[in-house]
């Protein structure tokens, strides 16, 4: 099993550009999450999903959109990137009934 994977690993964008981050999991997790990690702030939840076709806002959802068309994939979109979105983004999956989370390796995004 690959576990939780993220694509791409690194990306540099210019302000105003758009992009999509892909998270894929082969662990049959019902729950999936997108976090951003910034120095001194731990991880902050952007959006999450409790099942295929459902999404919900987390702590810092502004400027991001998500979709979960298939159970194994959770996409994070930036429609118009801003320098404040420079961060490391982590995807995680988890099983229903427990909140132990399994993390992907992260995507480092820089917005110039």
């Amino acid at each position, binding site marked *: 099993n690959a576990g939780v994977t993220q694509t791409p690993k690194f990306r540099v964008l210019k302000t105003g550009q758009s992009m999509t981050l892909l998270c894929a999991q082969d662990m049959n997790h019902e729950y999936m999450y997108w976090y951003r990690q910034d120095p001194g702030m731990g991880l902050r939840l952007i959006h999450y999903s409790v099942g295929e076709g459902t999404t919900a806002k987390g702590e810092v959802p502004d400027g991001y959109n998500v979709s979960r068309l298939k159970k194994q994939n959770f996409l994070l979109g930036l429609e118009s990137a801003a320098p404040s979105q420079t961060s490391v983004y982590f995807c995680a999956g988890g099983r229903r009934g427990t909140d*132990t989370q399994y993390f992907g390796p992260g995507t480092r995004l820089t917005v110039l």
Partner: protein
Amino acid sequence: AQSVTQPDIHITVSEGASLELRCNYSYGATPYLFWYVQSPGQGLQLLLKYFSGDTLVQGIKGFEAEFKRSQSSFNLRKPSVHWSDAAEYFCAVAFLPYTGGFKTIFGAGTRLFVKA
């Protein structure tokens, strides 16, 4: 409001010395408690978790943590640190808000440096 505090931004210990990383939480009931470790350039890996029962929890890599309800703490310990333990450690709490489904809050992290 619920919160997680890791008072130490970074800690330096000598290899072979003991380690204790502090974590305090604010929540009205007993939450689910976790410690994760993040090596440089990697994602987070679960070290251990506490849901109920014995308040001393054993994890991977020789780590343990003790839940103290009276102090709202869940401190992580290791009796003898190895150089490979140098990483960032995150305490997290999860709970069921009224809207349903778990919500997880992470502390800001403690970076551990190990000196020879």
